């Protein structure tokens, strides 16, 4: 464990991500109105909810892509809502995958994976290359190392994006509707990759509309609507015993 982590006094028994009473506004529009949730090490949680309910905003706050107005987000004991936050330290711990992949189009698949460890972490090129090759295997893209993003299918690009985030050896992965832009056939290949990650013990926070996947992989499911968590629970109880009418309506539409 690095000194920075020790200094924060965090131990793996405590939540890896701990959000308390999070408020976030864009101008006058309050998008998150007091969100609290904890994610333990190795846990996989899914956030579901109608469009515009603030799911993306929530997970973007976790790696400081959005600033927040009130509340606290601790990632391994490090306060994200801190003006003196060391963003690099945070982003080494938190990997993120986006709906639109957002690969660097002027770099090949393997270069996309290798760039950040070399330029940001200043790691040795050969070590990074070895690691990148193993990640390519992990996301099953052997043979596509030297293809440019524009030459890959959506599902392949998304798997490169996952490998790119993993190359930074994060402790938590954030996934924001990573299959929403994909064809139904390619959704599966990406979900399999995420599922394997979760099973290996990666801590994952997923925003998803794939209820089947959430049911199978999630340890805990949160339903958000209009900036608050309406209901949450482990998949077994969540899907069968939803109490809130909003949850019921949402589930009836989507299942």
């Amino acid at each position, binding site marked *: 464990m690095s000194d920075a982590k020790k200094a924060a006094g965090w131990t793996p028994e405590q939540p890896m991500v701990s959000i308390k009473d999070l408020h976030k506004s864009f101008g006058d529009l309050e998008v998150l109105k007091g969100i609290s949730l904890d994610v333990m090490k190795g846990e996989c949680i899914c956030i579901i909810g109608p469009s515009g309910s603030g799911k993306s905003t929530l997970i973007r706050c976790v*790696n400081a*892509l959005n600033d927040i107005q009130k509340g606290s987000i601790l990632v391994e004991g490090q306060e994200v809502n801190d003006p003196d936050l060391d*963003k*690099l330290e945070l*982003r*080494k711990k*938190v*990997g*993120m995958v*986006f709906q*639109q992949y*957002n*690969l*660097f*189009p*002027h770099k090949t698949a393997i270069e996309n994976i290798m*760039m*950040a460890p070399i*330029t*940001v*972490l200043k790691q040795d090129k050969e070590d990074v290359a070895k690691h990148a090759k193993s990640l390519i295997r992990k996301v099953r893209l052997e043979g596509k190392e030297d*293809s*440019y*993003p*524009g*030459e*890959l299918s959506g599902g392949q690009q998304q798997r490169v*994006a996952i490998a*790119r*985030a993993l190359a*930074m050896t994060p402790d938590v992965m954030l996934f924001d509707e990573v299959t929403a832009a994909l064809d139904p056939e390619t959704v599966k290949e990406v979900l399999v990759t995420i599922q394997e990650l979760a099973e290996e013990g990666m801590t994952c926070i997923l925003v998803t509309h794939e209820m089947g996947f959430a049911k199978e992989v999630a340890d805990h499911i949160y339903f958000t609507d209009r900036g608050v968590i309406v209901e949450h629970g482990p998949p077994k109880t969540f899907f069968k015993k939803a109490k809130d009418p909003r949850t019921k309506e949402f589930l009836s539409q989507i299942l």
Partner: protein
Amino acid sequence: MELFGDFFKQLYDTTGWNFVIFYDQVEWDRFIAAIWTTIRLIIACLIFSVIVGFAGAWAQGAKSRIIRYGMAGYIQFFRNTPPFVQILFFYFVVGNLTPSYDAGGYQQAYIGSFGWAVISLGFFAGAFNTEIFRSGIEAVPESTVEAASSLGYTRLQSYIYVVFPLAFRVCLPALNNNLVNLLKTTTLAYGIAVPEMMYTANQIWSDNVNVPEMMIVLFLFYVGLVAVLVWGMHRWEKAMKIPGYG
């Protein structure tokens, strides 16, 4: 060379077409000197205008309001006045205000006509380059920059490794256009007696009364130069092309 000269001498004697530069050593030397001056002028202007463009695009994104307004004023000024007037203004007005030194009896300016031509044409084309580079930077999606931030890139690193390489590709065609325009505009330097091709041709036809012949030479010379630049930029554009992108 001998044969070459003889041919044009013969041509003059039989038809009256006087391509004096090809058989008269003195005029030939003048012509060659003009070629080099023109090429040096063009290269200096191209480089300076691209540097101005980079700096300008960067300054336009500055936090300081004064810098941003200053940039907007600079661009409006240079885009909306004739480049010929700009050259004359720089040489005769700004040039007069800059320091000079005593060169044995008369005052010699530190910056000569060549220097002022480069400065004024560089700022002129630089104003357009600024707009071109800025539009290129704006064409890079914010989400791509966010992806870089989420990987721990600092603002500067994401500019160096992601934004600039992408923006540059987007603006190459427009830059290409502007640089070709700049090449053609360098002929205006004749107004402040830079001994480039336009100026020299003018002198040669004054001495030899062969305006049509020198006009033909002038045209062919610039057609050749533009062709070389366009070819070079085209090769560059191709080399920078990303498979499956754009």
